[in-house]
């Protein structure tokens, strides 16, 4: 295997460890005493409190607590929500698929808008279409996505009545309604990513189009379209494909806001509700899961990049 790749995989382990340390520190900085919260009615009883502390390993030294906590995470036990007393793993299993559904749609929309726009901008470099596309991308990046969501609701739901203004219907229940409730939030979420994709596609295309092998192809007499599609595009798509994985963070951050605006019971809304519920274990669980997903996806993106790009494969 590629030595560079092996190095990347080796880097993941310390990163994950540091992530877990970071989240563990967060856990201990959060206000509120877990024993008192979980004791509920019996919080005045010191015996019960001591019992709970022993159960949660709160009376042991910190390094041991960390060790115990890592063991629990490895078994899929992310703790108990203080608000609903349910296992956080169960809450995550309920809410994450919703966010991933909207996020997946958002990414598809972003690719459908951003990549063609980037290609057009690169091909028409310096002309009107380039400026238009670049301006649109910049505008998209500068628009707060919750504002875009509110404006879309105002237009498409309140004024035109075309789409429901909020809520979420799972596709298993009614796929048409599901589409109707997710198309606006997906568009809003995908908007920023479309802008980023557009800029990357444009610059990757420009780089590819000016490279030697493309000039050679042109010299050979291949048509302009042939050059673009045959060589430039294929090479330009490489960074674009891997960008998707790297933008997971943007997607999740954006999801926090769009789920609030559109009242979607997803992962992002879960962390906001958790803050207002003073449900700190859930906040911490969300941070842990997203960080973990991001690290793994970044690794997957790097592997994917090497696999797709023949030139890097042999090191």
């Amino acid at each position, binding site marked *: 295997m590629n030595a560079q790749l092996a190095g990347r995989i080796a*880097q993941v382990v*310390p*990163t994950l460890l*540091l*992530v877990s*340390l*970071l989240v563990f520190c*967060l856990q201990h*900085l*959060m*206000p509120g005493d877990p024993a008192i919260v979980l004791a509920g009615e019996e919080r005045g009883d010191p015996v019960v409190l001591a019992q709970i502390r022993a159960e949660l390993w709160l009376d042991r030294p910190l390094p041991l607590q960390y060790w115990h906590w890592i063991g629990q995470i490895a078994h899929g036990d992310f703790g108990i929500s203080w608000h609903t007393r349910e296992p956080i793993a169960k809450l995550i299993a309920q809410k994450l698929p919703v966010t991933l559904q909207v996020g997946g749609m958002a990414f598809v929309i972003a690719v459908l808008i951003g990549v063609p726009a980037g290609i057009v901008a690169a091909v028409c470099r310096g002309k009107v279409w380039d400026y238009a596309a670049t301006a649109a991308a*910049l*505008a998209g*990046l*500068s*628009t*707060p996505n*919750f*504002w875009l969501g*509110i*404006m879309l*609701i*105002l237009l498409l739901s*309140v004024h035109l009545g075309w789409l429901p203004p909020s809520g979420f219907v799972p596709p298993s229940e009614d796929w048409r309604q599901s589409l109707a409730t997710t198309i606006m939030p997906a568009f809003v979420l995908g908007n920023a990513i479309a802008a980023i994709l557009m800029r990357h596609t444009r610059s990757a295309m420009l780089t590819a189009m000016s490279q030697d092998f493309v000039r050679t192809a042109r010299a050979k007499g291949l048509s302009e379209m042939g050059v673009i599609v045959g060589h430039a595009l294929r090479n330009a798509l490489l960074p674009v494909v891997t960008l998707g994985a790297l933008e*997971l*963070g*943007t997607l*999740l*951050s*954006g999801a*926090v*806001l769009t789920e*609030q*605006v559109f009242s979607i019971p997803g992962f992002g809304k879960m*962390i*906001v509700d*958790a*803050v*207002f519920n003073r449900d*700190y274990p859930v*906040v*911490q669980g*969300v*941070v842990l899961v*997203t*960080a*973990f997903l*991001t*690290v793994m996806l*970044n690794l997957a993106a790097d592997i994917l990049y090497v696999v797709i790009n023949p030139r890097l494969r042999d090191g």
Partner: protein
Amino acid sequence: MADRTIGPRYEALARFLERRVAVAALAVIVLFVLAAVFAPLLAPYDPTATSWSAIRKAPSVAHWMGTDENGRDVLSRVIFGARASLLAGAVAVAIAAGIGLPAGLLAGFARGWIDAVLSRIVDAVLACPFLILAIALAAILGPNLTNAMIAIGISSAPRFMRVARAATLEAAALEYVEAARAIGNPPWRVAVFHVLPNIVPPVLVQATLAIAAAIIAEASLSFLGLGQQPPDPSWGSMLNAAQRFLTQAPWLAVFPGLAIFLCVLSFNLVGDGLRDALDPRA
């Protein structure tokens, strides 16, 4: 030999000034800053002054942008809201640069295990999505504007570290830096007097773009209720109230959002302009 670092700067400035869009954006930023600084003089009303008889009035001569659900003048609140946003942008980025720049400089210059450790720490922090980390920090510290600025600053620091580190790696390879090292200057002197001036340009670009991101982050946190607390105005919290009254008072949603958009767009344009001006290769 000293004028080697002055020349390119004038060139860069000239290149920047050539790009009219970037200059226009800079002018807009200056306008926003002036509005924030001279808010008490510019705003027609006290932004927190409620008026029970003027609830949710549409824009009119008396209230150019209308009034909100508590009878407060929206224009005044938008002007004063600039304070929260720009302050958040400046302070958050100052914190981020204050942490990230030295860290990146150290990592890029010292290399070896220091670099490895710092880079892994940065990877770990970057693994948490920006807003989610900011929310978690706001939850710990408590919701108010100051804590939001700290949270955004900490979340933005990794990117500064990366930029500073990459620039340091490049700068350290420059001939005259190596020469400075060779003649026996202690490492810290080389780092501060020779490497640092060279990494300022990319860090400056990052800072401008980071301010744009910080303004959106502050608006986002305030929108969620975790930033600026009532009655002090923030463009983000104004949008929260606007959503509640979307059918009765749609104008409430337009102006604060427009303000965020213009402000952030300007910073993005200036940042792009700086990047193009400072990096002749692009």
